[in-house]
């Protein structure tokens, strides 16, 4: 078996709360191959973002911690790595683009400096070399007149420009893994498309594996090779993106896919009501019951769903789902 670039095994992340320790992510395992684009999909609060932070060893501690499992980057465990080693990995082997370009850049330093210091932190380069590199990166992410822009401060740039700068920071050390946590949620639709074009373009040039975290199914369909669906801290379905769109197995996944509104050009067409999944994501502290976490919102739930949580089982070649409907038909 070839070793994967990144391998997450039985990951569990816990947070201390007034009501005791709760698990916000449990039994999460996935693999990421070189050059692959993996989508992680789910509603807000399902554990996507905290999973991303755990890959960088940045789970806020206290109150959070990785309480079980391993995160192997080329065989090296990130969970047990020293802070010094983690610093070498962050920004260099694994880097991250955050959701909020407006607040993720430091307001008091020029964007050039914020790119260059990342290069200086990981390579033994001089100030002027790092600055040259920063300008190159600005050019690469499609910022016009980069020599001039490098001297500007974040407040002088638009949201899309700032996200391009964030991407430049993330890619300056040519990481093996790039994590993008809802990178376009805060941006206009037209800018979103530009940013994703940029991601695709850069992936060809740099060849990094990408983990794309999003709740936008359209983005998943366009960008990713493989998809993981998370619900209430667990992985409930996994498979290639085509199967995810055309033949979702888990009722929750089906719900997500059906939530995409369709455009209709026929004015006489009576628009069908928008589809929604009833109910809300359970809070982590509600998850002490042994039932399937999705059962209260599932229209196909039957007796077994309320008794036992379904295991994640293979349903087809390269696909898995955690749903009793797949294995035990209601009788």
């Amino acid at each position: 078996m070839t070793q994967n670039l990144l391998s997450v095994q039985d990951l569990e992340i816990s947070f201390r709360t007034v009501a005791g320790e709760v698990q916000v992510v449990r039994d999460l395992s996935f693999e990421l191959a070189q050059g692959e684009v993996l989508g992680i999909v789910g509603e807000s609060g399902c554990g996507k973002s905290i999973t991303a932070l755990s890959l960088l060893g940045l789970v806020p501690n206290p109150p959070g911690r990785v309480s079980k499992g391993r995160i192997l980057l080329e065989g090296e465990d990130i969970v047990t790595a020293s802070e010094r080693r983690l610093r070498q990995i962050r920004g260099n082997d694994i880097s991250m683009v955050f959701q909020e370009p407006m607040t993720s850049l430091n307001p008091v330093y020029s964007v050039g400096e914020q790119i260059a210091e990342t290069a200086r932190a990981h390579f033994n380069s001089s100030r002027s070399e790092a600055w040259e590199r920063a300008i190159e990166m600005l050019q690469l992410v499609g910022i016009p007149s980069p020599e001039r822009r490098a001297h500007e401060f974040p407040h002088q740039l638009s949201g899309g420009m700032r996200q391009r700068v964030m991407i430049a920071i993330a890619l300056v050390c040519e990481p093996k893994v790039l994590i993008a946590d809802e990178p376009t949620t805060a941006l206009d639709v037209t800018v979103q498309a530009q940013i994703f074009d940029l991601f695709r373009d850069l992936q060809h040039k740099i060849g990094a594996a990408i983990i794309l975290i999003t709740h936008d199914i359209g983005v998943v369909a366009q960008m990713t090779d493989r998809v993981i669906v998370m619900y209430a801290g667990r992985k409930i379905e996994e498979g290639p993106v085509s199967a995810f769109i055309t033949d979702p197995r888990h009722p929750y996944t089906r719900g997500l896919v059906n939530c995409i509104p369709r455009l209709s050009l026929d004015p006489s067409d009576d628009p069908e009501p928008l589809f929604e999944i009833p109910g809300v994501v359970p809070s982590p502290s509600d998850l002490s019951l042994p039932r399937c976490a999705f059962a209260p919102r599932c229209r196909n739930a039957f007796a077994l769903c309320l008794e036992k949580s379904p295991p994640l089982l293979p349903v087809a070649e390269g696909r898995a789902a955690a749903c009793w409907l797949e294995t035990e038909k209601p009788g």
Partner: protein
Amino acid sequence: MVKSAPVVKSVLRKIASILLLLLAVLVLNSVLIYAAPGDPVEALVGEMGGATPELIAELRATYGLDRPLWQQIGVYLGNVVQGDLGHSLYYDQPVTTLIASRIGPTLLLITTALFSAIIVGTILGVFSAQRRNSTLSHFVTVLSLAGFSAPVFWIGIMLILLLSVSFPIFPISGMTSSDGTTSTLGYAMDVAHHLVLPALTLGLIYLAFYSRLARTSMIEVLEADYIRTARAKGLSRRSVVYKHALRNAILPIVTFAGLQFGQVISGAVLVETVFAWPGLGTLAFDSILRRDTPTLLGILFFSSLMVVVMNLLTDLLYRRIDPRIKTS
């Protein structure tokens, strides 16, 4: 060069508004003081132990106090505009000379106290913000509470009792000993020795404020998204805290330091009085008791001048630290 043009323009605009403000302060102050009951001659006569009505009338005429109020104020304003702050009735010296001779000790005291407090306070705040439940963090909280609650003269007297009376390490009062030391170094050492207690007293009050401010500001900044970005880049802890966090956290400290430095004179009155420090604070206090109107007005005018000048300097410093100010 192109970049500096708007800065120059906004500084010029500021200076214009400052001049107007100073004029308003001047008019208001003189109206208030001249309209207050009692005059310098009464105080003078009181100190002399009484005088004949003829002498009193003569004194009043000499100082122009027999003229109507609006004339007195008018003459005063006219003089100030020409750079003449008047003549002290008690010290028999020009007020400008008097202020010039007292400003040195006050500036020495204030700068020592304020700058040590800002430096120590920022360090305490930065460390305690990183470990919010540590002993140091609790110490900062208690210190600031105590510093806010304890009156400054009480702290001064307690320090005198402890470090001058019980353990006579530092002199009780004054700025120099009268033992006639002549060498410059000896003089400087002597002044420094006298400076410790008053600067400590004033500094403790400031320290309470700045450690608290630095702690709050730093805690807020450490939660910011750009700090998470800095950590995700793989920067060292030192770089995250001192380069990325501190530079942002220091902005409110600069603001308050500028404001407070402008208020030096009112801030130092109590400390200067307790320690008989020969500065502007003591002079102001004595002038009130002696109804020395020109001196008092001069000091008030000088204080407001300090406030506006310091605000202007703070503004300029702010532009250097925070690039967002330049364009707005």
